C-alpha cells in the first residue's frame, strides 16, 4: 500500500494505482473526458491535470502512478483556468447543438460545460465539417461531435481485439475513421458507442426515440446466447428504445451486436408469442400444453414406427449449458439415439 496526500487528505491505496483512481476511490472528483476505467490511460483531454509538489508543471492524474508521500492538489484557480481553456477549445470545435442531440442529458461534455459555466467562449474559428454520413446499418457516426478522446479506438483494440478504427491525419484535421475512410464494416458490437462520452457515436435506431431523462431502465438478461450478459433495457412507454449494460455486471458492461442492437423483435408485429400448429396447411395458434403434447406424440409415433435412429436432435447456442445438457440427455436417454448435434458446430 502507498500513502499519499490528495487535497490535504491522507489516503492509502494499493501499489500501481494512478493518482486519478486514488482520488476517485475517496470520492475526490477530477474531471475527465478521455479516461475510461477499463481502458489504458490516454492523457489526451488534459482535464485531469493536477499539481504535485516537487513537479514543476501540472501532470495528468490518469497517467501518473501514485507514489509514497506524494502531495497532490486537484483544484486551484490555475488548474480550473486551464480546464476551462481546454473545454472552451473543445467547444469552439463542436456543433453545440445540444437541443437536438441524442445524448443531451447523458453527455460528459455537456455536463462539464454546465459545471464550468461556459456560456461565452473566448475562442472561435474553423470547425471540422464532415458531409458524408456513414452508411453502416447500426452505428451513427457524427464525427463533428467527436472530441478525439480515443476511447472508441482503445475499446475496439484492447477489449474487442478488432482495431476497426484508428486516428488518421494530423493536427486539427485529425479524425477517427476506419481504414481508407470507408464506411464502418466491423462486427458492430457497439462497444465504441458504449464508451463515447459525447454524441459522436450513437445507435442508428436510437434517433429521436427519446432522451435519457424520459426512459425507464429495466435490468434483464440477454437471451441471445448462453453467456447471459446483463442488459439494461431503456424503456419509454412500453417500448424498448435502446439497450445498454452496466459496468458492475458479469459482462462488465460489454455487449455484442445482438445484445446491443438486436432488440427490434421485441415490438415486432411478426413476433411469435404463442405456439402455432399447422392444420390443413394453415398455421393455427395453440396452447403450450397442446403444442408440447402434439410434438411428444409425433416423436413417439416416428420412433415406434421407424426406430429411434429415424430421429435427430439439433440444439441451439441460444440455450445455456444446462439446457443443452438436458437436450442431449433427452435425445439419448428418452428417444434412444446418438443423433444429436448443435448449431455452433456449423
Amino acid at each position: 500500500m502507498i500513502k499519499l496526500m490528495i487535497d490535504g487528505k491522507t489516503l492509502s491505496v494499493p501499489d500501481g494505482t494512478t493518482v486519478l483512481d486514488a482520488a476517485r476511490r475517496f470520492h475526490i472528483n477530477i474531471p475527465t473526458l478521455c479516461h475510461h476505467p477499463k481502458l489504458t490511460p490516454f492523457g489526451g483531454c488534459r482535464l485531469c491535470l493536477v499539481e504535485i509538489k516537487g513537479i514543476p508543471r501540472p501532470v495528468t492524474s490518469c497517467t501518473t502512478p501514485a507514489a509514497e508521500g506524494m502531495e497532490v492538489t486537484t483544484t486551484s484557480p490555475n488548474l480550473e483556468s486551464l480546464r476551462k481553456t481546454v473545454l472552451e477549445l473543445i467547444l469552439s470545435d463542436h456543433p453545440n447543438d445540444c437541443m437536438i442531440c441524442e445524448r443531451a442529458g447523458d453527455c460528459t461534455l455537456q455536463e462539464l460545460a454546465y459545471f464550468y459555466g461556459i456560456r461565452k467562449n473566448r475562442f472561435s474559428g474553423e470547425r471540422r465539417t464532415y458531409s458524408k454520413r456513414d452508411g453502416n446499418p447500426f452505428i451513427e457516426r457524427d464525427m463533428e461531435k467527436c472530441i478525439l478522446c480515443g476511447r472508441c479506438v482503445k475499446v475496439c483494440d484492447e477489449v474487442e481485439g478488432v482495431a476497426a478504427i484508428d486516428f488518421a491525419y494530423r493536427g486539427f484535421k485529425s479524425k477517427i475513421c476506419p481504414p481508407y475512410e470507408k464506411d464502418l464494416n466491423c462486427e458492430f458490437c457497439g462497444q465504441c458507442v458504449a464508451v463515447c462520452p459525447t454524441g459522436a457515436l450513437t445507435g442508428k435506431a436510437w434517433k429521436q426515440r427519446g432522451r435519457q431523462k424520459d426512459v425507464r431502465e429495466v435490468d434483464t438478461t440477454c437471451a441471445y446466447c448462453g453467456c447471459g450478459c446483463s442488459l439494461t433495457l431503456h424503456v419509454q412507454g412500453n417500448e424498448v428504445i435502446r439497450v445498454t449494460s452496466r459496468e458492475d455486471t458479469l459482462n462488465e458492461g460489454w455487449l455484442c451486436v445482438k445484445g446491443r442492437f438486436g432488440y427490434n423483435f421485441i415490438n415486432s408485429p411478426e413476433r411469435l408469442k404463442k405456439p402455432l400448429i399447422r392444420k390443413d396447411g394453415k398455421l393455427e395458434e395453440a396452447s403450450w400444453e397442446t403444442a408440447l403434447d402434439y410434438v411428444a406424440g409425433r416423436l413417439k409415433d416416428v420412433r415406434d414406427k421407424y426406430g429411434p435412429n429415424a430421429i435427430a436432435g439439433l440444439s441451439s447456442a441460444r440455450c445455456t449449458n444446462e439446457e443443452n445438457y438436458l437436450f442431449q440427455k433427452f435425445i439419448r436417454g428418452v428417444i434412444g439415439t446418438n443423433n444429436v448435434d448443435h448449431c455452433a458446430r456449423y
Partner: protein
Amino acid sequence: MAQSDETKKKVVVRVCIGTGGLAAGGKEVIEAFKKAISDFCVDIELDFTCHYQKVGCRGFCARDVLVDVVDGDTSVTYQGIKPDIAKRIVQEHLINGQPVKEWLIDDSYYSFHSKQMKVLLKDCGTIDPEDIQAYSKVGGYTGIRKILSTMTPEDVIAEIKASGIRGRGGAGFPTGVKWEACRKAQGDVKYIVCNADEGDPGAFMDRSIIEGNPHSVIEGMMIAAYAIGAGLGYVYIRAEYPAAVERLKLAIAQAHETGHLGKGLFGSDFSFDLRIKLGAGAFVCGEETALIASIEGERGMPRAKPPFPVHRGLWGRPTVINNVETLSNIPYIIRNGASWYSSIGTDKSKGTKVFALTGKIRNTGLIEVPMGIRLGEIIYDIGGGIIGDKKFKAVQLGGPSGGCIPDHLLDTPVTYEDIVRTGAIVGSGGMVVLDETDCMVNIAKFFLEFTQAESCGKCVPCRIGTKRLLEILDRITRGLGKEGDIELLEALCSDIKVASLCGLGQTAPNPVLSTLKYFRHEYEAHIKDKKCPAKACKDLLIYSILEDICKGCGVCKRACPAGAISGDKKKPHKINADLCIRCGACFDVCKFNSVNRE
C-alpha cells in the same frame, strides 16, 4: 616511352556531394571532369593520374558546387562550379598548371571559416562518406577499440559525464546522466536509438553529418551501446533524406563486411547490430515517445512521461535515444578525452554546436562553432551580414519550438542558459536570419502553421489551441485583428505551454511569445493602425501612383495582372483600389519609383 600510371603523380579532384552539392550538380561535375580528362587523353599523354573523391557537406552551401583540386601539398578550391567549367579547369589548371582565377573561392570563404571550430565537420567534407576505410584512416573506430580493450561501461559513462556534453537535439539534457540511468535500469534487453528525424524548417545539421560522415554516428552508437548494455540499435531517419539513408545503408553494409558490426567485435565479447527505420514524414516523431511508437509500428503519438524511455522505452525496454549530432560527438570525446572536450565552450555548455545558417544572410550554410560564441559573430563574421545591405531584424533559433532574438541581444553568447533567457532555445541548430522586410507577426504565423499541421492530434491544447492561435495571427496579418487579440494570444499561449502533453505543444507558442516580447509594436501596428511596418502583409498594403513623378510610360499598366491601372500615355496613371490585388507588380517594374506602397 610512356610513363606507367603508377609512377605518375596523383591529382585529386574533390567534389561536394552533400544534398546541397548534389542539387547544384555535384555528380554531373564529377562526370564532366572524367569526360574532360578522357577527351584530353586521346590527343596528349597526361603526366598525372586524376582521382575523384566524393565528400559530404563542406558547409559553404551558398557557393556550391565546391571543388578542391589537390596536387601534392597544394590544394585549390573552386566555387560555383558547373559541368561546363570542368573542361577549362582540366586544361588550364591540371594540364597547364594555372588555376582558373575567376572561379577560385573568394575571401568570404575564409571569413566564413575564421570563427568556426570544426570537430564534427572536420572530416565531413574531406573524407569519402561512402568508404569505411576513409573514416578509419582519420582515426575512425579507434574510440570503440579503445573502450573495448581498456574501459568498463562505467568508465565510459564517467568519461562522457566528465566531458559535459549535453543532448544536441534541443533539450540539452546531459548525455552521460541519460546513459547512466539506462545502465542502471532493470531490463534483459536494452536499446540505443539514434534520432535522425530532423524536421525543423531550415535545419540540416543531422542530415549533413550522416551524409558526410555516417561512420562517426555508427561508432557513437556502438560506444553508447557498450556503455548502457545494448546489443541492438535503431537509426530512426526521415525518408525525405534519401541521400543520407543510402549512405547510412552503405556504411552499415561496409561495417558488416569489415567486422565493425556483428558478433564479438574486435576480439571482445561485445556484439552490436544496427537497423534503420524510416520515418514517414511526421515532425512529431522526433519526440522520443512518439518515435518509439513509430518504430513499434504504431501511429506516432507521444505518451505521458514518466516512465521515461531510459526505464520503459522501445518494446517496453530501457532505451537511450540520442540525437545524431550528440552521437557523432562521442567518438571524438573518447579519442581525445573528456578534458579536451570540456575545454571547449563555457562553464555549463561544452563543446561545439553545429548550426544550419539560413535566411537573409550572405553566407548560408552549415557551420560549427564553439559554444559561447556570440550571436553577432555568427551573423556578421561567419555569415557575412545581411544580403543586399538591408537592416538586420532578428535571428530565429530553435525552429518551431524556438524564438526570435532581436538586434540589441546579438551579444548573447550561444549557450543553453543564455539563449533560453532571451525566450528562444538553442534547439537542434536551425538559425534563420530575418531582415527588415520580414514581418514578425507573419514569422510567428509561419511557425504556427507548421506546428499546427504537425500536431499529432492527441491532446486538446495542441490540436485545437494551436489552430486558434494561428487563426488569430492570420486575422491580424489580414488587418482583421481586434482589440484584445494580443491579450488573448498571450493567455492562450500560456495555457498551451502548460497544458500540452509533449514538447511539441509545450513549445509551440514560443515563436508567438518571443515576437510579442520584442516586436509587440508590430502586432499593435497591425491591429490598431492596420499597417504592416515591414510591408510584408499583402492585405494591409495600399498601392498608389504619385502623380507628380509618374511619366505615364505605361509599364505598370502592362504589368498589372488585374487590369487595375488606367491612364493615357505620357499622363499620370491611376490605380483602382477596388481592382488592385496588391501583388506589387507595378511597384517592382516602375523605373521612376512613382508607385507608392504603404
